[in-house]
């Protein structure tokens, strides 16, 4: 007897998005399984961030369907998607500048994790959870500081910790390593691998190919709003269409 394949965590069918006459996403089909480490790559302007914005609810898509954990997401506001288990980190860190690091994490814990049925963490438990999350990304000693006192790599870690504080099943790490040194890229990779081991499915949107290749178990390539390749990283990189997109004719 053949076992039925597990339903994908995220299923995107024919997703389309236009800005005036410019087609940003053109019929994207994508399935992501629970626990996967997916690399999403493509040249600048290929639609990676637009795709993340449509999936997370920041932008409204024009066509197609998004299903997360079997439920349709079309028309669901961004904060509800976060509560359902879709989290993201931003390309440029967007911390809550007037708050301490602990309070930065308190927000998603209060408004996303605690808003789920059966989750009622008290103030003390939330505080402990914030400190534990900051400890997990190496920011425990900065817990009472403001984000402006952090270095670039620490800011990226805070961004990831805040996304994780919402208790996601799927995390979009949007260029979480941009502008970092080699050693710092390794630090972020280690954090992402630990998060994946803890059960979080991760989509890594990145330009640093070394990081993408070492992290991803599957690679998806977007070019001009279209998906041109989807498969094992080494195979995808040998794809002539991908080579053309990256190296030219």
């Amino acid at each position, binding site marked *: 007897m053949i076992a039925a394949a597990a339903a994908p965590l995220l299923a995107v069918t024919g997703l389309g998005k236009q800005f005036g006459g410019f087609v940003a996403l053109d019929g994207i089909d994508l399935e992501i399984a629970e626990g996967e480490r997916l690399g999403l790559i493509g040249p600048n302007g290929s639609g990676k961030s637009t795709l993340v914005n449509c999936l*997370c*609810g*920041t932008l409204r898509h024009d066509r197609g369907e998004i299903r997360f954990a079997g439920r349709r997401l079309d028309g669901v*506001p*961004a*904060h509800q998607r*976060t*509560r359902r288990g879709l*989290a*993201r980190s*931003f390309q440029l860190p*967007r*911390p*809550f*500048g*007037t*708050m301490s690091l602990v*309070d930065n994490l*308190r*927000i*998603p814990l*209060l*408004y*996303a*994790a605690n*808003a789920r049925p059966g989750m009622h963490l008290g103030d003390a438990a939330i505080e402990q959870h914030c400190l534990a999350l900051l400890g997990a990304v190496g920011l425990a000693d900065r817990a009472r500081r403001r984000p402006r006192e952090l270095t670039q790599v620490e800011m990226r870690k805070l961004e990831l910790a*805040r*996304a994780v*504080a*919402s208790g996601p099943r799927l995390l979009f790490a949007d260029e979480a390593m941009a502008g970092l040194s080699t050693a710092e890229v390794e630090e972020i990779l280690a954090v992402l691998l630990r998060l994946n081991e803890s059960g979080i499915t991760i989509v890594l949107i990145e330009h640093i190919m070394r990081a993408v290749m070492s992290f991803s178990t599957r690679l998806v390539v977007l070019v001009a709003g279209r998906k041109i390749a989807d498969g094992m990283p080494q195979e995808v990189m040998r794809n002539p269409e991908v080579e053309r997109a990256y190296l030219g004719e």
Partner: protein
Amino acid sequence: MSSARFWLASLAITAILLVLTRWQIENGYFYFAAYVVLQSVVLATAWNILGGYTGYINFGVGAFFAFGAYSSVVLHKLTTVPLPVMIAAGGLVSGLLGFLMGCLTLRLKGVFFAIATLALAIVAQTLIVNWAFVGGSRGIYIIRPQHAPLAGGYVQYLYSLMLVLSWLSIAIARTIERSHLGLGLAAIRDDEQAAEASGVPTLRLRLLATTLSGALMGMAGAPFPYYVTYLDPTSSFSLAYAVNAVAMPLIGGMTSWIGPVIGALLLGTVQQVATVTISSALNLLIVGLLLIAFVIIAPNGIVGLFARRRVRRR
């Protein structure tokens, strides 16, 4: 201090202040001037719930204040309900206006939101100007009841009510600031997109802030017809209310409940003293000069200035 303790402690202080002033001060002008200063405390605190906590600048203060005042005029003409009921009704009407403003401006941010609130005030004023029942552009005279419900004159009674309203608005503002709601509003102020991505229902919280802020402004406006005894659209919708309500939290500090209180007490008192000693026309000039000074010396207001010194000492 927990919120419950703060409510009780501040209520006790308000009661002591009320008894002490009513017992010790006989000068009628004190009550006349103190009413205006306390009205500023309510307006500045109310404005700060939306402007300071949430980061949405509201220039339509005059509309909320005037709707509170005109709801009292309507009730005065139609019923014989006591003033505290009129204050509650004023809060309800202006709260509803705040909710409507929130719904109409859901997609507006920054300067566009501020301009929309200004436009709302103009639309609201036009409605009142064309409503003959409340006096239209001619305005309307309100005759105060001959006897005040409490001992003393009617202005003393109005002062007492405004003192209680100040307590109520301060207690509400502080409770919001220290609550999960306050944290959510602060997240919206810092970065609305990041707040939404963190699970904060930004539209719902914004609506709550516009409604609450509007309701408190309406409550401040409700006793106004009895204070001035003649109400007209020009004075009740005056832009000066908005200028003061913005300037006071800016001077005191916008991120804490105490900031607008300090700003209102400081600026309100200086304005009253200037009115008596120099000229009432100088009021807005004083506001402007103080604003320039504070933007240069203490951009985070007096509270921010002290907080910075405390950090430096550490």
